[in-house]
């Protein structure tokens, strides 16, 4: 069986196993084991030959995303080793959590690996449903509201994406060979000979559909509440993985449609959505009082930035977008880990209740501070590098784009600095405070930050080459 399939089936098999593990400790450890195993498998992909095998493909574009996905899967599993106990879930829900988590990981892998657009669609749908279950896990009204919104909006979105896929097939159907009707490679090859009108229609639906998943404004409404409910681990994987998979799907569609010279340039639409997301999210950050929702909005901001990069297109633009996706996943999940630990410390996720971490729990406080700085795009982390490349590219190609970009970035940094100081500095508010954070939360945070640092200013040669190639693949 080819390696990619293994990578999909292992988590699903794990999910099946976890479904029958009653003891939570054992289940959590098994969860970690499975995640570690699949991470090793993902590493093995580096050696695997690139190209299409059946419904899956392995290329420079999805390889980094896969590695990242399973890395974050592992760190999240380790984190929830310590954290999930504090979520106060009954055994049934706890088991549901573990099952859904592995289900999600497998679907995630499939979504990233898929070459057949239909399969990709199915995988993303499964991942969505799994995450919906995890979001609604607590069953509180707020959780139900978030999950229901998530479910309905993404259900509609995914349906539109399917329609887009079908229309894409309709466009290619006259010129494409039978059987490979939905293969990305094949579609991209023949795209130039398709009817541009149909391609446009297809792209609109794909963009709206997968863009909903990627949380692009104005299709973003589900994201803040979905990431703020459910166990903290969910926030990490949602912002770290699901958004990336959706963005990858958009990229695949863009690559196909963009291959036809006479279509409405897909980059322009993506750019518009990206800039809108940056502006709206940046200013939405100003009035957040809930820490997790704050960083959920910042995920929208960063997805918007990545979309802007891909919308600019070209080697540099795509590289900026890809780098931004990777860096954002690392930094943001690190921050969510930190927030989760802080929430455990204080039993509230309101910013006002979390203050003064640097004094209450210095190790956690400073780690979180650095993490937030990384998310805010301050040096020397990956987001700084990607934003530098993005802004310089925008200035060189569409100077007018500097204004919305700069405005959004400035507003976002202002808001993030405010929250950073509110969370980390000053005297802690008097109130219940548990013991300091343990290694299961600090370890993942530091690991992510170190990786983000390397990704920012000290990327090893081979990976650098890989990313460069990926920028080419994104078209």
């Amino acid at each position, binding site marked *: 069986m080819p390696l990619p399939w293994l990578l999909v089936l292992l988590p699903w098999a794990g999910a099946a196993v976890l479904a029958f593990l009653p003891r939570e400790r054992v289940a959590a450890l098994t969860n970690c084991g499975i995640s570690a195993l699949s991470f090793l498998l993902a590493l093995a992909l580096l050696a695997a030959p690139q190209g299409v095998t059946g419904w899956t493909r392995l290329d420079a574009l999805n390889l980094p995303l896969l590695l990242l996905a399973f890395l974050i899967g592992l760190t999240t599993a380790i984190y929830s080793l310590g954290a999930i106990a504090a979520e106060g879930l009954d055994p049934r829900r706890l088991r549901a959590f573990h099952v859904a988590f592995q289900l999600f990981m497998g679907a995630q892998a499939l979504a990233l690996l898929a070459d057949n657009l239909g399969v990709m669609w199915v995988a993303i749908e499964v991942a969505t449903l799994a995450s919906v279950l995890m979001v609604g896990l607590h069953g509180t009204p707020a959780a139900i*509201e978030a999950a229901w919104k998530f479910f309905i909006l993404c259900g509609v979105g995914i349906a539109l994406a399917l329609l887009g896929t079908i229309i894409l097939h*309709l466009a290619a159907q006259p010129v494409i060979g039978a059987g490979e009707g939905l293969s990305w490679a094949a579609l991209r090859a023949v795209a130039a000979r398709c*009817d541009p009108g149909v391609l446009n229609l297809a792209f609109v639906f794909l963009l709206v559909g997968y863009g909903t998943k990627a949380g692009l404004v104005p299709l973003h409404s589900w994201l803040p509440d979905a990431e703020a409910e459910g166990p903290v681990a969910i926030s990490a994987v949602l912002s770290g993985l699901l958004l990336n998979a959706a963005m990858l799907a958009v990229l695949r569609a863009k690559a196909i449609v963009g291959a036809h010279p006479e279509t409405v340039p897909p980059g322009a639409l993506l750019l518009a959505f990206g800039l809108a997301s940056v502006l709206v999210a940046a200013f939405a950050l100003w009035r957040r009082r809930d820490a997790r929702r704050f960083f959920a909005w910042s995920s929208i901001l960063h997805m918007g930035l990545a979309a802007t990069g891909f919308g600019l297109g070209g080697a540099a633009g795509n590289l900026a977008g890809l780098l931004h996706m990777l860096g954002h996943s690392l930094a943001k999940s690190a921050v969510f880990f930190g927030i989760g630990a802080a929430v455990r410390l204080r039993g509230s996720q309101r910013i006002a209740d979390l203050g003064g971490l640097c004094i209450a729990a210095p190790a956690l406080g400073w780690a979180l501070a650095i993490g937030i700085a990384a998310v805010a795009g301050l040096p020397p982390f990956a987001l700084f590098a990607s934003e530098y490349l993005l802004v310089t590219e925008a200035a060189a190609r569409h100077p007018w784009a500097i204004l919305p970009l700069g405005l959004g970035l400035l507003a976002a940094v202002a808001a993030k600095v405010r929250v950073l100081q509110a969370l980390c500095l000053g005297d802690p508010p008097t109130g219940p405070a548990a013991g300091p954070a343990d290694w299961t939360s600090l370890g993942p945070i530091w690991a992510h930050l170190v990786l983000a640092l390397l990704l920012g200013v000290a990327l090893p040669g081979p990976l650098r080459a890989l990313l460069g190639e990926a920028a080419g693949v994104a078209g």
Partner: protein
Amino acid sequence: MGFGQLPYDVAHLLGGGMLLLSFMLLYQRRVAAVVSVLAAQGAVLALAAAWQGWVQGAPQLYLTALVAAVAKAGFIPLALHWMIRRLALARGVDAALGIGPSLIAGVALVALAVAVALPITTGAQALAREDLAIALSVVLLGMLMMITRRNAILQVVGLMSLENGLVLAAIGVAGMPLVVELSTAALVMLVLVVAGVFVFQMRERLDSLDIALLHPHRGEGE
């Protein structure tokens, strides 16, 4: 298409039937009736799939027809009816947008769908083009229904009829791989299950399915 007018007309007829049913969905006031209309739409969909299978000589479409008949015309409506009975839903549907205006909006949407679909697909076969236009309309009408209905179940119904539109579009295209239809059908089931879970949870927490009552519970409030 090597055939004469007939296949074209029949396919057109069936598609038009689905569109009509979508309008009836918008028009209906009573939940139970809405679900029955949905069932009817599923049945028509099954017929359309079978006809396309015969026209295109694509056996897998018969399977699609079967799935549609079983799931969309049979199981799902039954499940919904059961739910309605279990939850003793109010008979009447409280629409956010009046019936009349929503019908007008529906017509406008159909016009838009036609405007988008007709000119661009000149390359493709006439059949596919007609189907595309109708499918687009059904999808848009399904979304319109989701917007204009307050009741959670009716939102699910809207989603379902939206999916019907999808399948209609899918079967209209020759050579669409089987995986899509099957996965769609499977997922529709899954969606229904998840939706059911949440509907019951909502019911027990808020003893209402009016999603407007959900809004105040969003985290962080206003």
